[in-house]
């Protein structure tokens, strides 16, 4: 079990900055995020887009903002549970919250800060009948450990960077048979990856099927996956493989948090804006894009402000008898937990 002062759900910019503000008050944090890397939307949706409204930065790329935040919070050595999503929450009789992820990792803390943005990034699933029967049983939407698939016949679907990158990765390993199926002729990916894929398919190293789409899935008598593929203007064809990776990107969904007994309004968590961004459950706060109140602005900078206010309240929640006074970093500097 992981024990800390504040469990932060969501490792986007606001979740990351919460670690800093909490650290100034000597509160330790542990971040949980469904994505395998920190940064949330900034890392997953628009890493290479500039942001123009971070005070002090006339322009900063989203991925650079994440890197700067990671550097800023390093002295406070936060813990991370990445690639897992917070599934359930329970409050014990001593007032501690127990947050368990979909992988069964348990986290315990007196305070929970939900900085979940638009929700858990979940894979977009293609409309294929009976698909769920094959999930984690031949079909994977996220590839965590590619070595598991050595010497396998692999089919990848998708036209974005992740589909192409994995198709190239497996092809270059020379230990797989790789087929990339894409619904159109144009890719939404880096030009050099697209060029490589075309080169590899011309050399016969991998098979490229354009204007094609998997329509049905079943398993044959040899336990191979049998994909029924529709190619525009042609008859459907069947492809046998060991593994199929439909990589159509991720889309955020509020997910299990919606069932935690929190007051939800317009797909966001209602908080007390006038006070401390507390939710209707004592000890649980919601900050950043995931919360709502009158006049709410979904801006990173507003999330940063909410984080600063929220940790002051979290401190009082954890140490009701201690008095805290706001310290200025310019006066005191940053003292991490390791020093």
């Amino acid at each position, binding site marked *: 079990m992981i024990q800390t002062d504040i469990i932060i759900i969501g490792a986007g910019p606001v979740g990351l900055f919460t670690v800093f503000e909490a650290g100034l008050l000597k509160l330790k944090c542990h971040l949980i995020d469904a994505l395998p890397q920190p940064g949330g939307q900034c890392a997953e*949706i628009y890493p290479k887009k500039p942001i123009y409204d971070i005070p002090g930065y006339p322009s900063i790329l989203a991925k650079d903002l994440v890197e700067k935040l990671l550097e800023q919070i390093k002295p406070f050595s936060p813990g991370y549970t990445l690639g897992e999503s917070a599934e359930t929450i329970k409050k014990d009789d001593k007032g501690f919250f127990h947050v368990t992820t979909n992988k069964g990792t348990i986290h315990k803390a007196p305070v929970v800060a939900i900085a979940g943005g*638009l929700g858990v990034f979940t894979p977009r699933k293609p409309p294929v009948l009976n698909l769920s029967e094959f999930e984690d049983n031949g079909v994977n939407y996220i590839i965590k450990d590619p070595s598991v698939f050595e010497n396998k016949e692999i089919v990848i679907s998708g036209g*974005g960077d992740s589909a192409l990158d994995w198709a190239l990765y497996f092809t270059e390993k020379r230990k797989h048979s790789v087929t990339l199926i894409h*619904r159109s002729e*144009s890719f*939404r990916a880096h030009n050099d990856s697209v060029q490589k894929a075309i080169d590899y398919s011309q050399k016969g190293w991998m098979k490229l099927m354009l204007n094609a789409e998997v329509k049905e899935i079943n398993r044959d008598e040899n336990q191979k996956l049998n994909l029924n593929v529709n190619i525009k203007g042609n008859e459907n064809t069947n492809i046998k493989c060991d593994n199929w990776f439909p990589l159509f990107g991720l*889309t955020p969904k509020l997910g299990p948090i919606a069932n935690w007994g929190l007051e939800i309004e317009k797909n966001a968590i209602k908080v007390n804006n006038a006070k401390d961004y507390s939710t209707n459950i004592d000890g649980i706060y919601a900050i950043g894009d995931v919360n709502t109140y009158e006049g709410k602005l979904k801006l990173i900078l507003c999330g940063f402000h909410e984080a600063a206010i929220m940790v002051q309240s979290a401190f009082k929640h954890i140490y009701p008898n201690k008095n805290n006074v706001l310290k200025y970093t310019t006066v005191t500097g940053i003292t991490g937990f390791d020093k």
Partner: protein
Amino acid sequence: MINEINIKVIDRNGELHNLKGPIDMNLNVMELLKINELPVEGTCGGMAMCASCHVYVVSDHILPEKTFDEIAMLEESWDMQDNSRLSCQLKLSEQLEGLTIQLAPEQ
């Protein structure tokens, strides 16, 4: 000079909404839908980097051409049709007066 246009929106239950939108505020259709609390997400904020504001254009308006990003994004949507657009890429302008759109199914 007109500074407000009318847009008709058919929601996912088939219900028709008559919206009015200003053309002098640099708004796009996705934003107008959100202002009117119609259920589009606009996850990426309007960068044509997601398809959560996907709509079908029902009226026969001549619209600004799709960018490469918009086409590529729409092609990844399961529900793409010939009249598909990302509403974030349609800027409110006089050209859009009387536009009728239908919300595409949720992703």
